[in-house]
């Protein structure tokens, strides 16, 4: 099993996505899920209970048999992938940058969506603006990879209020927002409200470093804020417990804020293998 660091060091998102999805499907015989689709797969005999609409009447006229046309299921899910490009994404823990981790995660998810034929779109949050980089087109996977490779995180993140229209639309939609959610002042409540829609689901993937989750630095450090560039000199050991308490309180607060029917917050430590994270996301999503 390849580690996160190895995957990220590859510096090839396409390969990384494939490796991760392979890890994900290890030992799984992908049985064909048969259902309604556009591409023909096979015929089978009609069985009582089957929808009459699905009987191939042309075939019946030829052979007098009730047969049902089957095809592999196609999901028609719209997936919006959102990547936070604020400065705090540049945080590096154990040699792995949060941004790289997020890029590989998104690439893997996009690959899986691409395999399923889902409509993929890609957004970035840069300098407080949400910007659509890739529209849902058949070639969007390649374009997403291209933009992911170019993406660079910088600057602060005073998120401008997300416009009401952003999440509107009737289609089923899965929004996967990869960030660290380390913005204290953001009004997450407003975001949650706009997601009060039965056909939409918001998955917030919070990627946190090991030191952020379990602060155990020792010695004198100069902490430089990734977003503002401010510096604070502190003895790490002296403030260990305090930092842990405060940060845990913030995480608890986030958990409470994101308690809404269609919203899920998945907290991920950067030492978790990417495949495991992807599996967790797939398992937790409610939209088929």
């Amino acid at each position, binding site marked *: 099993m390849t580690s996160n660091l190895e995957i990220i060091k590859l510096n090839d998102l396409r390969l990384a996505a494939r490796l991760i999805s392979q890890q994900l499907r290890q030992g799984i015989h992908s049985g064909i899920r048969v259902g309604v689709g556009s591409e023909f797969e096979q015929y089978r005999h009609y069985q009582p209970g089957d929808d009459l609409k699905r009987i191939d009447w042309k075939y019946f006229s030829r052979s007098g048999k009730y047969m049902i046309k089957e095809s592999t299921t196609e999901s028609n899910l719209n997936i919006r992938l959102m990547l936070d490009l604020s400065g705090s994404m*540049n*945080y590096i823990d154990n040699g792995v940058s*949060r941004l790289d981790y997020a890029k590989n995660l998104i690439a893997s998810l996009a690959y899986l969506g691409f395999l399923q034929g889902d409509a993929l779109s890609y957004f970035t949050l840069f300098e407080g603006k949400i910007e659509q980089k890739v529209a849902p087109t058949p070639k969007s996977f390649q374009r997403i990879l291209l933009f992911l490779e170019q993406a660079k995180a910088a600057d602060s993140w005073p998120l401008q209020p997300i416009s009401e229209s952003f999440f509107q639309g009737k289609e089923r939609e899965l929004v996967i927002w990869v960030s660290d959610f*380390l913005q204290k002042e953001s009004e997450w409540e407003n975001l949650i409200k706009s997601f009060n829609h039965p056909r939409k689901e918001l998955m917030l993937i919070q990627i946190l470093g090991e030191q952020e989750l379990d602060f155990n630095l020792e010695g004198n450090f100069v902490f430089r804020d990734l977003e503002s560039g401010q510096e604070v000199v*502190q003895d790490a050991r002296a403030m260990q417990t305090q930092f842990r308490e405060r940060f845990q309180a913030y995480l608890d607060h986030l958990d409470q804020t994101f308690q809404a029917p269609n919203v899920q917050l998945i907290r991920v430590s950067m030492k978790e293998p990417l495949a495991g994270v992807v599996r967790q996301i797939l398992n937790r999503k409610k939209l088929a």
Partner: protein
Amino acid sequence: MEWIQPTLLWGLLGLTIPVLIHLWNGKKGKVIAWAAFPWLDPKESQSSRSIKLENWLLLLIRILLIATLVFLLAGLIWKGFGSSREYKVVHLIWPDEQVEAEFRFELEQATQKGQEVRWIGTGLPEYGTEQVSAVDFSQEELQDYLDELNTDLDSIYLYTSLQSSFFPKETYWLPQNPVIRVAENYLPNGSNPAVSLESGEFLELDQNGILVKTATNGNASKTISGQISYAFGIISEERKASIQRALSAISEVYSFRFNEGNLNTAELLFSDSLTSNFDGNKLVFLSENQGYKISKKVLALSHLVNLNWEETVEKGLLPELILEGILANLGMEKPDLKITKTQLEKKFLAIPSSKLSKTANLNEVLLVLLVILFAVERFLAYRANL
């Protein structure tokens, strides 16, 4: 500033310890790019400037702490310290009224200044209160008297005269080289003893110690009347003759008269060696002796190594030696000769300062300083949480 144990000043190398610790601690921490910044406590974290200032203060105090400790151990003697410590002067006066009288003005001035004025010697009355002549004073114990002086004196004035008999020994040790004031007009006590002779003349020693005959003398202490009897013990004939010749020479020059008498009653006894029948009243001259003076009453006429009998006779020293013994027996000794001031000064040597046991006068101050510094250091260290 002086040090009792200057070698301990190597301890000052210990000053590098807090500096090194400080440099080690102050080593600017690793810069960490930190995302979860708002959860750090900017209040608790001093700005780097203030943390530096406080650390410098702490460093300074720690350095001072170690320096104080080293100074305390090394024993700092700071002469300028303490107003109670004055310039200490002692005036030592030879216990003789003549000397005192000559320097009375200076001594009174010194007393007015509050300086110590005393006679040389222990158990002597304080200066100015009593006459000194009553007290017994032994020249043999001079060094003991001088040893009783305090060691922390700044200068010693010695009032004395140049008589050679005042300081019989070769050297005297003092905490300091004394400044010697010489009583120029000192006259030795009592005039020289004189011997009146039968002829009506007097024998006395003049200023230079030479025996002279004078016609008049007021204070002849002794009179030699009649003859001086002498006898021979066991002695060779040859020597006997030499002695008789010497005696006749003496009587010729100084009009002493000798006659050979009974061995028991004779005042002078000449013998080859010391015999058992030695009478305490006799003055015994030995022609052969082992080279030392046996007592005041037993004198040698030859010396085994330096001057043997033959030499004595050959050089004509025999009358001189005999007369010297007789005169000494009569109480006529050489007068008190004067020595020069330089000679007197050479007799006094300063005790090397390393032999003096010193006490550091700053110990209490340093101790208090140490405690204060330690308290401040602890306080700051606690505040800085170091």
